[in-house]
């Protein structure tokens, strides 16, 4: 009894900050911004977790990482074991520890957040995953007996990698078909190096391959082969993890001027094609003097911080609502601000202006005010009549969201789509309207998160195994 009291009195250390590159330095390079915990800080942070008997944090994680267990192992300095614990349900911890929006997932429900700041679950996850990798050869979990059944996974984003890895562990023969020349989906073409080093993605992809998954890149399903042909070739099930890769443009005059990019193009050139290393790498990307990104989400933040690093003198975010309504993660907004990005709120473009070479040289913007809340609960932006003004810039990136790419879907006549063109699939079993075809990730939900896509992959692996075992649809 006495002892317990003592323990209670012991002061909890504050949530540990993660060191970051100095903003003045990092705005000039593509190296990772956040530098990760040291062993000491990791142990201190881990000591904050009280190991709840009914841990709510686990329910906040889409793949149910056993958070208290892995944190306990960190407390005991068993870092490699901690990483393995996470990998029981999450095969990509180094990635999730970096890009999961923990503040709205596992950390928001941590009991500590009621009285203090939550345990830094993501930072710890990142630490142990990096520790394991640095400690040497990552151990490959034992494989089950080969099941003699083949599964085709389309798309190598987090959804596809997860379902493939899990099925391989169960003993299935899994082949991933990827349209691009590098696996990883948004992890390689979208999220920039300074937030998620590509060597880490390669490392985690390598792990999935070591589990026995075969990867076929440069393979466009719907063109190189169709889903129907998969079944003819002896595949027993197909998983579609196509992502939401169709860029939306604004339907405004001048949208096709030179120097107006979709965020997808801008980020793909920089990340996948390594345009930030031009001319060492052949693919160019021009940012001009004043680069403006339209949008307020994570994709917009990634684009504007890329433009800054590529050497634009001035970088702006144009957002039609105010800071409060921005969907981007707070951390990313702060990072952008610290690096010198300028935010222009409550304005919206109505026209793009070009010079005689057809290059964008400015925009006509209109001022907005906030009206009644809309379906999303955020106050609706309303244009203020007669408030248009001309705004100069020489590069524009459109980051207002994306939709489902119809390329593969249009070749599958029996596949049911919803009114926005996404695949209709059961959230639990990932079953679609076509027998043997499962789907998950952004192609079902629209743009979501890495870990949600992985959650789909995880559930799909269970459902696919069940389908093979029972034969029931």
């Amino acid at each position, binding site marked *: 009894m006495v002892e317990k009291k003592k323990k209670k009195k012991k002061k909890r250390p504050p949530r540990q900050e993660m060191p970051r590159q100095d903003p003045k330095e990092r705005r000039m390079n593509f190296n990772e911004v956040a530098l990760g915990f040291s062993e000491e800080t990791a142990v201190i942070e881990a000591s904050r977790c009280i190991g709840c008997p009914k841990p709510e944090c686990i329910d906040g994680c889409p793949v149910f990482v056993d958070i208290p267990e892995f944190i306990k192992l960190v407390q005991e300095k068993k870092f490699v074991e901690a990483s393995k614990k996470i990998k029981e349900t999450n095969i990509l911890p180094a990635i999730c520890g970096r890009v999961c929006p923990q503040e709205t997932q596992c950390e928001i429900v941590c009991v500590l957040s009621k009285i203090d700041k939550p345990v830094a679950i993501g930072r710890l996850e990142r630490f142990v995953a990096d520790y394991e990798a640095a400690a040497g050869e990552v151990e490959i979990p034992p494989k089950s007996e080969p099941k003699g059944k083949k599964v085709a996974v389309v798309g190598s984003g987090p959804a596809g990698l997860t379902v493939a890895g899990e099925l391989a562990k169960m003993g299935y023969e899994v082949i991933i078909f990827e349209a691009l020349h590098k696996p990883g989906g948004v992890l390689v073409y979208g999220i920039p190096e300074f937030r998620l080093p590509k060597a880490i993605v390669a490392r985690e992809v390598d792990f999935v391959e070591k589990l026995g998954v075969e990867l076929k890149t440069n*393979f466009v399903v719907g063109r190189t082969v169709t889903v129907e042909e998969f079944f003819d070739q002896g595949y027993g099930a197909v998983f579609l993890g196509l992502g939401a890769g169709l860029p939306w443009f604004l339907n405004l005059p001048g949208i096709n001027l030179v120097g107006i990019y979709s965020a997808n193009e801008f980020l793909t050139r920089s990340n996948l094609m390594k345009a930030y290393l031009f*001319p060492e790498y052949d693919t160019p990307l021009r940012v001009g003097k004043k680069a403006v990104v339209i949008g307020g989400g994570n994709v917009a933040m990634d684009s504007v911080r890329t433009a800054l690093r590529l050497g634009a003198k001035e970088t702006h975010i144009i957002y039609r609502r105010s800071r409060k309504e921005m969907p981007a993660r707070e951390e990313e907004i702060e990072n952008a601000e610290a690096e010198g990005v300028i935010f222009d709120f409550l304005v919206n473009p109505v026209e793009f202006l070009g010079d005689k070479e*057809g290059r964008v040289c400015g925009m006509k913007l209109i001022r907005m005010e906030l009206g009644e809340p809309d379906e999303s609960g955020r106050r609706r932006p309303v244009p203020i009549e007669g408030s248009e003004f001309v705004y100069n810039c020489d590069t524009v990136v459109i980051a207002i969201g994306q939709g489902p790419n119809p390329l593969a879907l249009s070749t599958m006549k029996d596949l049911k789509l919803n009114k926005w063109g996404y695949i209709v699939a059961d959230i639990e079993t990932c079953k679609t309207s076509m027998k043997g075809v499962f789907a998950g990730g952004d192609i079902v939900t629209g743009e979501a998160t890495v870990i949600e896509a992985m959650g789909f992959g995880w559930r799909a692996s269970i459902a696919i195994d069940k389908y093979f075992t029972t034969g029931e649809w």
Partner: protein
Amino acid sequence: MNQIIDKKRLAEGINLFEIEAPLIARKRKPGQFVIIRIDENGERIPLTIADVNKEKGIITIVVQVVGKTTEHLGTLSPGDSLLDVVGPLGQPTHIEKFGTVVAIGGGVGHAVCFPIAKGMKDAGNYLITIVGARTKGLIILEEETKKFSDEFYITTDDGSYGKKGLVTDQLKELLEGGKKIDLVLAAGPAIMMKFVSLMTKEYGIKTIVSLNSIMVDGTGMCGVCRVEVGGKTKFACVDGPEFDGHEVNYDLLMKRLATYKEEEKLAYDRYMQKIKDKGKEM
């Protein structure tokens, strides 16, 4: 994979490559293209599949040297491999029996035109082919095309071969000769396609052009290939590359093609310097 099986020089700066790509060969229809990348530092560039040999699993591409990547490609030999070849991309040509079809290829654009023209002939059309180039040395696939064309014309800007003049001069002659033409196909420089389309519009003849916009992924993911057709934005890589010639905004296409002029020149000069330095060393 992606091994170069054969290489032929067709003209100054224009090479034909046969590449091992069985999956693509099996699927490809006339009008479709591939995107290739030579090595890890390389750019992805689109190239029309000029021909295929399904049995052998081979695709043929015909490439003109215009910048760094095509220059580099020109230095490769049989036995070398390309790092990436993906396809077949784009919508296949709508091929049916139209009646009389005029297929116009300008410069290396004839490599794009060639498979479509062949497809049209196979579908039972009366095929008239016009091949144009700046000068005699740049005329490609002459014998191969003659073989399946019912009528065959050559024009050169300098008059060194065939008729002196532009492909549009030859087209005009056919039109004024009172020949009933049901369809015109054109592939080549944007400016050529523009003038062909202006001419056929006057005569009310349906015209299909193959647009060569800048591309990255070729799957509809990035939007760099967007073109305006009938006032609407289209993605050339998935909606095209062929469109109704009378509806295309060619001026926009030309401006967008010039996006990276300076960077392209820098990359090319840098590459040529590297080759030169290497030569000195040896």
